[in-house]
């Protein structure tokens, strides 16, 4: 360890320091060095001791919470591929097939995203911030498996540049960057982001063919168009249904949520109130289902509220996206309101507009816009209380 450190100090670092040949690229070097070593920086002003937590560890914890979803997603991709072709495949074959599809997306997401981050940091002369580490993992997990890699790259570029860097980088963005990437792809290339062709990879080699009666639609897509689906609630809970790569397994998402809540890094307030919001909307639909116009819609509305919560990207969005502390509500009271409406609107959008079965994406982006407003009113209440205290005092005197 000492040897690496000395090597860096003596042979590499001087090139990047002031006066060195590569002075401009200091942020890149610093990014790598601080990844390897937590620097020996000491507290210079104020308190002399500091908490052991930093942004790297925080972001890393979120990534850990995502790993089960990623691994499951890889296997699920393979599972559906071989099922669609009617081929009996082993678990390993299924997993490897999925990994071959998914890992390039992860690499493209990180490569393009971090590359752009580095570029902006070099231009601005800022240190590299860790925000993209989580976004870079989230983006592939919320894409359909058959999206071309260049679309992933373009969506990432849009999210990083327009969604984040123009606002000033990590901590300054208004929208969740990962969701912005998805929204970009969704509206720019709708045929690759919705419908029933993209969720299951059906590329065939010679001699292979898709089985008769195959449908590539997601459970949610089925319900929205026909009011029925071949997938059971149990399938949806375990996650063996088609969908965006990482979103399908509610079981593993709950596991991830457990880690986030346990470490305090994801807000349980947002998660809980979003689930309540979704359940409330689901119950309302259950109650009014008989009055729906078409039989399909009647059937969709009649889906039990708890079943709604385990379909589509609802759980994934609520656990990993709604809890983004930067784009979400920042006051503890505000978090309840923010979360509730995310859940409420997700289910509402998905049922009322079958063209957008992924209501959770739009609901979160919409509530990102509303979060500062919610915080504003929470803070105003505190200010009012202070002013009333003063008024009471002056009246009494």
């Amino acid at each position, binding site marked *: 360890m000492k040897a690496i450190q000395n090597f860096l100090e003596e042979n590499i670092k001087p090139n990047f320091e002031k006066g060195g040949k590569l002075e401009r690229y200091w942020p890149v070097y610093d990014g790598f060095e601080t990844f390897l070593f937590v620097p020996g920086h000491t507290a*210079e002003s104020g308190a002399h*001791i500091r*908490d*052991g937590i930093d942004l790297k560890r*925080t972001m890393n914890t979120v990534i850990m919470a995502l790993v089960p979803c990623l691994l499951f997603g890889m296997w699920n991709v393979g599972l559906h591929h071989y099922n669609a072709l009617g081929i009996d495949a082993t678990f390993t074959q299924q997993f490897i097939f999925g990994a071959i599809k998914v890992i390039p997306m992860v690499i493209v997401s990180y490569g393009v995203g971090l590359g752009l981050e580095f570029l902006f940091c070099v231009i601005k002369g800022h240190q590299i911030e*860790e925000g993209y580490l989580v976004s870079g993992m989230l983006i592939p997990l919320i894409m359909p498996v058959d999206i071309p890699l260049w679309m992933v790259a373009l969506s990432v570029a849009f999210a990083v540049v327009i969604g984040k860097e123009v606002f000033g980088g990590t901590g300054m963005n208004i929208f969740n960057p990962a969701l912005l990437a998805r929204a970009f792809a969704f509206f720019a290339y709708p045929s690759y982001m919705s419908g029933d062709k993209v969720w299951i990879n059906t590329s065939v080699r010679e001699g292979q063919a898709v089985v008769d009666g195959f449908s590539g639609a997601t459970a949610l897509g089925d319900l929205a168009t026909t009011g029925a689906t071949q997938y059971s609630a149990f399938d949806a809970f375990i996650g063996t249904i088609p969908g965006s790569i990482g979103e399908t397994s509610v079981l593993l998402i709950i596991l991830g949520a457990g880690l986030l809540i346990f470490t305090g890094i994801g*807000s349980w307030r947002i998660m809980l109130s979003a689930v309540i919001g979704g359940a409330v909307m689901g119950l309302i639909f259950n109650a009014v289902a008989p009055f729906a116009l078409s039989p399909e819609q009647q059937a969709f509305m009649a889906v039990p509220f708890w079943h709604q919560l385990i379909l589509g990207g609802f759980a994934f969005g609520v656990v990993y996206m709604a809890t983004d502390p*930067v784009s979400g509500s*920042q006051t503890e009271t505000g978090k309840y309101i923010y979360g509730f409406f995310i859940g409420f609107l997700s289910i509402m959008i998905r049922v009322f507009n079958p063209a957008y079965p992924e209501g959770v994406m739009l609901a979160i982006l919409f509530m990102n816009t509303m979060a500062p407003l919610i915080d504003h009113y929470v803070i105003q209440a505190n200010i009012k209380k202070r002013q009333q*205290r003063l008024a009471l005092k002056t009246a009494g005197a």
Partner: protein
Amino acid sequence: MSEVIKIKRGVDIGLVGEVENEFAPALPVETVAIKPGDFHGVRFKLSVKEGDEVKAGSPLLFHKDDEAIKFTSPVSGEVAQVVRGEKRRILEVRVLADKEYTYEDFGAADPIELEREAIIEKMTASGCWTFLKQRPYNIVAETAKTPKAIFISGFDSAPLAPDMATLLEGNEKEFQTGIDALAKLTSGKVHLGLNADAPAGRVLSSVKGVEVNKYSGPHPAGVVGVQIAQIDPINKGETVWTINPEHVVIIGRLFLEGKFDARINIALTGSEIKDRKYHSTILGAAIKPFLKGNVSEGKNRIISGNVLTGTKITDEGYLSIYERQVTVLREGIDPELFGWLIPKPDKFSISRALPSFFMRQAEKFTGQKVAYDLDTNSHGEKRAFVVSGEYEQVFPFDIFPVQLLKAIMTNDIELMENLGIYEVVEEDFALCEVVCTSKIPVQETVRKGLDLMKEEMG
């Protein structure tokens, strides 16, 4: 008996290096210094030059905007050096102490008999006035103001804090006289905050003429700002003064004996001090004699005060006026391989992403107190605000800390006022700074905000 006020939000940081409950043999005081940096909101003017002979209580400096307020010498002797920094700003006025002190005579008097003006006059002339701090802005009290209350915290809840009863022992009469004088200065009450969970000692529990409130809970329960917020929060236009109990004793001596007798007790604390004991000394004393042969090898940080709010000084430095301990820690200058990844148990954290939280939970079952051997490493680099709801866990005020800090960073005066900047000072935010994931310099930012508000609002 008054009700116990429970402070819920906060955290006790157990550190290695508690002081032993024992006094060390007295060490001679060779030099003392008054450090203008200790006082906020003052424009200083020198009253002496190098080589002048002074008595204990003779003015060294005075306040340009409030000329009655003198900053006096704690000992008699010779003005050895005026240390200046950038733009000739005065950093220290050093006095070489005599063996036997001679004192300026301010005349003994019973404060109960005296008028408010006479008390102010005695306190300002003797230098005792500078112990009074004024909120809003955390500045030296202005003589023209009458505070709505005076607050004294009778216990220190900071990490490695000395025991107040030990520091004050044997000064019953002095403390009572000091309180009698302070009672004349305010239009309201003198509030004394005591620890509900530990004995307060004879001096504090026997005092009369104060409103006693008891607090229980983790740090910052002993921080005077927290106590003010619980009892009588500061509204716009109101003034509150605060003072440390050890300074009340010195004020007491002024009225009992007519002299500025600046003897105080301090504690030597921190992991790098070998012999951690209480010491009797003088305000502003040089710390060198205490540390000689008493500090571990290696690169250390010497702090005048506690680890949360103290000032970094060198081994040639002097005690700060408002501090009651000297702490020495290791400097955390060693890089740590993948330090952000490995969940090492030797780091303190309020986050459950590190083992620290569980060690502190286990404390409740085993009864064994966890003591961290922390150094000064910042464990990460400065970032923008990302995490939310973090400061709120250790900030027992009805104030939105992050929003207030953002208002300060953007110089939004109206918002600062609305969010309650008058109610807080730097030290109230010390724990927020410790727990910050983004390593924001919180106390410095608050100070900047207070300075700006003072400039704008007067």
